[in-house]
């Protein structure tokens, strides 16, 4: 059935003219290079009231029949010789001839678009507040009956989100520490203020950069994972299955993730701080010749311990925010792949933005603390 003749049209003059089609009129033959263009040129030039002879057509499928049907302007020509074998195909095409796609819905106007946007934002906000409220209730229940809590999930998340992030946070922390140290050292050297390097490095890393770096890395790494996990659970109906079995999402999915991030993030902050300071120390030793001992002695004086606590507090807050945002977007994912991809992207972008916003809030609240 594969190597049949090309579909062709030929016109023999008479009264009226007769158009005879021959060859295989099926989609694979029509799709061959140039065939379609040639046929359409021919069809455009055909006389209106020609007689048609399809007796030499070897095979015809719906697409071939549709092409002829269109050439006939949606009705059978008055004189048509059609073999009985092909009758059924044309009947089908004729029956479907009246079908039209309904016109697409008009795009919403600017006012309507704005209203929809506000609607969506309000929807997100109420959902987020409900999620947070549920989390508080679940925390209360967890505190009341700690033995029945989701310990197993909690430990799994601590391992995946915390332990497995040690490598990447260390690498990034180390590099940032080195870069910061080099840049500051060069500037300070021009003022002869080399020894203040400890203050600059200590303050910026412990108070700002450590928590922020760790949070951004975790948001990209685990925030996306959480959203995708929940989204896939929606696609595979696991979320519904849990509800049917009476396992609430809040206790089993949200609480362990939020708690795990709240536990793990401050630890990651300490780890990132330490590695970044080590990198800074090493760079200072090479660039300015500041000894490691001096650096170590000077650090507690340069950075009051309050900054360390602020950093830890930021870690807890950022961790919970990342988890909440990731869960929020994960639960909103609809059961299709498009939504999964979009949801994950929005989740990560939102988590990072919110972390930076929260960082600004911390800066304002603690502006007179720790100097």
């Amino acid at each position: 059935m594969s190597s049949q003749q090309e579909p062709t049209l030929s016109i023999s003059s008479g009264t009226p003219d007769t158009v005879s089609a021959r060859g295989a009129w099926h989609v694979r033959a029509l799709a061959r290079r140039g065939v379609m263009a040639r046929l359409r040129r021919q069809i455009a030039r055909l006389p209106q009231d020609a007689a048609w002879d399809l007796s030499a057509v070897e095979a015809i499928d719906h697409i071939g029949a549709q092409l002829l049907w269109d050439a006939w302007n949606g009705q059978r020509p008055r004189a048509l010789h059609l073999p009985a074998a092909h009758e059924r195909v044309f009947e089908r095409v004729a029956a479907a001839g009246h079908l039209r796609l309904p016109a697409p819905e008009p795009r919403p106007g600017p006012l309507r678009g704005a209203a929809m946007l506000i609607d969506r934002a309000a929807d997100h906000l109420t959902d987020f507040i409900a999620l947070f409220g549920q989390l508080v209730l679940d925390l209360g229940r967890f505190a009341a009956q700690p033995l029945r809590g989701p310990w197993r999930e909690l430990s799994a998340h601590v391992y995946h989100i915390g332990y497995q992030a040690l490598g990447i946070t260390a690498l990034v922390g180390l590099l940032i520490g080195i870069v910061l140290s080099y840049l500051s050292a060069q500037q300070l050297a021009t003022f002869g203020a080399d020894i203040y390097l400890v203050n600059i490095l200590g303050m910026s890393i412990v108070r700002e950069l450590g928590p922020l770096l760790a949070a951004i890395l975790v948001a990209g790494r685990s925030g996306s994972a959480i959203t995708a996990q929940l989204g896939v659970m929606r696609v595979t109906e696991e979320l519904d299955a849990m509800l049917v079995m009476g396992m609430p999402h809040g206790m089993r999915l949200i609480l362990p993730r939020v708690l795990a991030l709240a536990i793990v993030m401050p630890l990651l902050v300490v780890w990132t701080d330490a590695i970044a300071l080590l990198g800074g120390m090493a760079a200072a030793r090479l660039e300015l010749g500041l000894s490691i001992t001096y650096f170590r002695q000077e650090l507690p004086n340069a950075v009051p311990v309050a900054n360390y606590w602020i950093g830890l507090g930021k870690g807890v807050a950022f961790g919970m925010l990342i988890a909440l945002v990731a869960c929020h977007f994960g639960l909103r994912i609809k059961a299709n792949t498009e939504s999964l991809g979009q949801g994950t992207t929005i989740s990560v972008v939102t988590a990072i933005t919110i972390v930076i916003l929260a960082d600004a809030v911390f800066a304002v609240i603690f502006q007179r603390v720790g100097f």
Partner: protein
Amino acid sequence: MAEPVIEISKLHTQFGQHVVHRDLDLTVAAGDILALVGGSGSGKTTLLRHMLGLTRPSAGRVRIFGEDIGKLGGQRLQQLRNRWGMLFQHGALFSALNAFDNVALPMRELHALPESLIREAVLLKLDMVGITPAEAQKMPANLSGGMIKRVALARALALEPELLFLDEPTAGLDPALSESFVELIRALHAQLGLTVVMVTHDLDTLFALASKVAVLAERRVIACAPPQQVLEIRHPFIEHFFLGVRGQRAQQALHETQVAKEPADGK
């Protein structure tokens, strides 16, 4: 047309230590409607995937339309792929496209047909499976399971295939829909001369459609014959599969006169 459409010889499949197929042979002639049956885990779907060229067997040869699909590549394989259609068990519609675009996609991929022709051809295909133009504009997420299946069949039929693979075509459809599905496939088969390979557990569908039944057990095809002949084979799996209570019912309903066998004790 003497050449078989599908010819599988000495096929061997192994996942790690687990042998799925051993020395499996199967031939499908043009115009056959072959039902592939077997217990769960007997490798029906794996065999189907081998035929589609999605996976490669550990050893052995799969020839489709006379060509060894393990050795084909590029253009030739694509041409071959345009000659068959596959209906996946859960439809596998592209969730980013609406029903209409899902069916139009294979036609557009040919880069040869004008858009006006594609539009009419798609509406025709959707009409054949009972989907209205209004429903055609819905996204797959908003379609019911039965509608997804019918749209998926329309997509499988988009390029007028000579060979149609069906994985559980009637699973998840209500009886009336199953019946119209069976009718549709039978009509298409009669009209387009389709060759159909289907994996099914639904005995009603099997007896209504299949011209041949291939029974997969003991890691190979133990029988490949018309349904009546397969029923007469004495083999524990066949007796269990066809002569259970459900099998009896299905046979009675559809072959009241032909099947005059004694109930083989239910087992």
